[in-house]
């Protein structure tokens, strides 16, 4: 699927969370295609072949199409979605290292409490292959933290802190951006995510923090 590649593509996942959601998408796309085709074929048939569907009683049309069909589709889909969502939660049982992401009009600041309070702006450094909890908040308006290739987004709400568990499988560079409209500079509120090999992470972070200071 070459068309799905891209530095910000949700369909080109580089971490388990994004991968799980991408799978969910492909499953839903397949199901939606079948349902859409079904309804449109029925529409064309009832118009083009008068009397074609009259052998099925009106009640049966409504019961089969309006109740049975949605039930067959929705029950497994919702169950799948809830289980998948549960797996993506930053569950308290495990406590991976935390990185703070603070939104401000119009730049992201990242702090690394486990690394002597190092701080980077507009660039997030991550170790590869291990989960990290991003603690997201804002000091002015609402922003949203989103790295499409790694995970879904979470809002940065002033006065609150939200938790997002992400993991990058491989070293590399990924696009991140503010996804909640936050005023004049919203478009420019992007950031880069640089993922290092686990053993290189501490050194690279110290280097980057020093350069930015």
């Amino acid at each position, binding site marked *: 699927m070459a068309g799905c590649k*891209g530095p910000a593509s949700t369909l080109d996942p580089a971490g388990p969370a994004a991968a799980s959601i991408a799978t969910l998408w492909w499953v839903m796309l397949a199901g939606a295609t079948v349902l859409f085709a079904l309804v449109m074929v029925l529409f064309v048939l009832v118009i083009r072949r008068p009397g074609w569907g009259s052998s099925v009683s009106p009640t049966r049309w409504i019961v089969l199409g*309006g109740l049975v069909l949605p039930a067959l589709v929705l029950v497994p889909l919702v169950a799948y979605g809830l289980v998948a969502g549960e797996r*993506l939660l930053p569950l308290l049982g495990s406590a991976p290292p935390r990185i703070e992401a603070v939104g401000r009009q119009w730049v992201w600041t990242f702090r690394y409490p486990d690394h002597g309070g190092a701080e980077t702006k507009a660039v997030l450094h991550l170790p590869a292959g291990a989960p990290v909890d991003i603690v997201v908040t804002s000091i002015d308006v609402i922003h949203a933290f989103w790295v499409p290739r790694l995970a879904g987004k979470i809002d940065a709400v002033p006065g609150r802190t939200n938790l997002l568990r992400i993991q990058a499988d491989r070293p590399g560079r990924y696009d991140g951006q503010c996804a909640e409209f936050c005023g004049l500079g919203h478009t420019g509120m992007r950031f880069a995510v640089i993922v290092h090999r686990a053993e290189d992470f501490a050194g690279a972070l110290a280097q980057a923090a020093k350069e930015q200071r």
Partner: protein
Amino acid sequence: MSALRLHRELAEIWATGPGWQRLAAVNHSVIGLRFMATSFVFFAIAGVLGMLTRVQLATPDAKFMDPETYNQVFTVHGSMMLFLFAIPMIEGLAVYLTPKILGTRDFAFPRLTAYGYWCFLFGGSIVAISLVFGVAPNSGWFMYTPLSSNVYTPGINADVWLIGITFVEISALTLAVEIVVSILKMRAPGMSLDRMPIFGWYMLVTALMMVVAFPPLILGAILLEIERAFGLPFFDPRRGGDPLLWQHLFWLFGHPDVYIIFLPMAGALSTIIPVFANRRLVGYRAIVVAIIALAFVSFGIWVHHMFTVGIPHLALAFFSTGSALVAVPTAVQIFAWLATLAHGRPRWDVPMLYVFGFFFVFVLGGLTGVMLAIVPFDWQAHDSYFVVAHMHYVVGGALAFPMLAAFYYWLPLLTGRTAVHRLSVPAFWLVFIGFNLTFFMMHLVGLLGMPRRVYTYPGDVGWNWLNLLSSVGGFIMTIGFGLVVIDMLTQFRYGRRVRRDPWRTTTLEWAMPIPPAPYAFASLPHVGAPADDIAAGRRALSLARGEGYLGFARNGWQETLGVHMTSGAPEQLIVLPRPTYLPLCTALATGAAALAMLFQFYLLSLAAALVTAGLFVLAGQRAGLVRDHGPLPVGHGVSLPPHTESAGAPPWWALIFTLLADGTIFASLVFGTFYLWIAAPNWPAAVAPTPSLTLALVTLAALAVAAAAARGSLRALVAGRSVRGWTGFAMLALIAAIAGAVVLIGGIAPPPREHALGATAAALLGYVVLHAGIGLLFLVSNLLRLGAGRVSARRSLDLRLTQLWLDYTVVTGAIALGLVLALPALVAMLGARP
């Protein structure tokens, strides 16, 4: 009597005058058309704004617009499409068609319809004109705080939205109440609820949804405007407010709004499809159940717009499951329509082309809607172009295509001609192809990571081609809409002439001459069978000859019938008001209040608001009849009392539904108080609240005394004694209650500007003051009307309305005062939190 003579007599009574007198119009046909025409103008403006965004986004790093302009353009595009086009368009359709389909001559409150129209026009114009001066709203159409607060949006941009849109919403609310009452009380004699055409059910459910859906947003907008203008921190997290409270209030309106737009159009489809299927609608009862279910469930899923704000997964699951469930009643309708076509002998004409467009677009939008209901997928797709695509498919499918089907179907009623096929068919395909090209690409670019509301994008992320195709599609769609407009204008002149009922229809709106006369029916039909199964064309002539009810002119009155709510048995003769400039003047005063508020002349605004209130009291003076008439003949040997002497007169029901809306505002306020208590940061406040128990009890007692005095005055009126003493007594009690509440507001701790705790207490007490004040207006109106002889023992409606209002004021007053008294205990509970 000959049909022609009857027509002349009735037309003289019902017609709107020429020239300037058009401004005094109150007739539903006139106002309905104005609503639709005006909203179509806003649609065109918003469409152009949409095209501007597509020009900007056609290529990466474009310099066509700067970010500030872009923000204003996309904000107004969204706000205008939803608030100034979608809602007014369905209201216009409801106003124009509902009385005709239900076989009555007009809506219950013609002056209110006119007032609603002027409010819509003025409020919408404020928003449109702000664009010209470059001060248009720029915080996105859902106006999230704190971005829309005066700290981050200091200019008047956000005020334009809050004031202009709220103005329009109040107009929508008045119309909603009117639609509900008219459908319940004003139908053709014999049209019991089970015989009502399905369109009536759709409009009834929609209007009830509007009655409950608009209040949360109106409250939110009022609170936000108070925060911006006077500094009371409802949404400011630093002072104990919470930006998420705005999101809850907004989406409590915003989600049902989608169905408020969809249901009337589904009603149109349920009317059109059977006609072209040559068969009655399948599953009437199933559809009624489905739309009631849809109405409720659509309220219960507002949080699915907030899946990424950090709400716990268990709570998200409620709303995720609900959002999937809402597909079921929709599927019931889709398959009822398919079954109707399957069991009929379908014929093909232009409206069916748009029905096809509806199926194609709406089903796609519904399917992506189910995808977005699944929480993890929403975490990725939320606020990306995928959502933009989804909502355009839903609204386009729910509104645009059915609306055009409805236009092509009902336009012959207005023009007496049918469409010019050579133009209609290519116009459809341009709209259809353009629409799908524009919005389908947005799904893909969203999945490739493009967030919504960015004014440009870099060229190396892989979004270039999809955006360019979207923009090209946008232009094709615009050309298509242009052709549709030309086609409709052409129809007026070059369409093939039809005399009446060109589609061989089965509903009453076609049982009249084309174009419809201002009185709609020269005489009212009796409905003895399901009213969606009437050979309309054949009924027309006998009705025109006056062979139904009220087939005569009397006293120069605009007469129609009020019926029993469920059975449709005629029970009162409703005499409607004649054309008047009062609605225009009242709306101008309301507009002056809004403009003064916008430019921060608060005293002037208050003065204009008082003038508005005075004009409403004045409007009351002209209502009703000056003497008791007793039963009057209405034809077919039936005699009925005029509505002024009837227990279940329309104003009674209107007040009940108004109080339902008002109660929703109050419930939202109580919800807001508890929400801030449990969820807002920076609670509890540094200062503990210390409300005065004595003062609160005195205030409540004064309210109770006023309500008791209102009871006393009603009893005195019925017994033939003087009611002035009682009325004066009630006034004094209300003034005492207002004074008590004002003193309570003055003593609020912490001060309302310093912490949300004080601000909510002030809002709760302010609510009590406002309602006691309106109670005073009721009493003033009663005194004036007593003096003018418009109230009698038999015409006691005014006093019953007053009593109802004051009872409501006591109940909400008790809750509000009780909550204010409970605040210290609630704050103490927070202290005990782990």
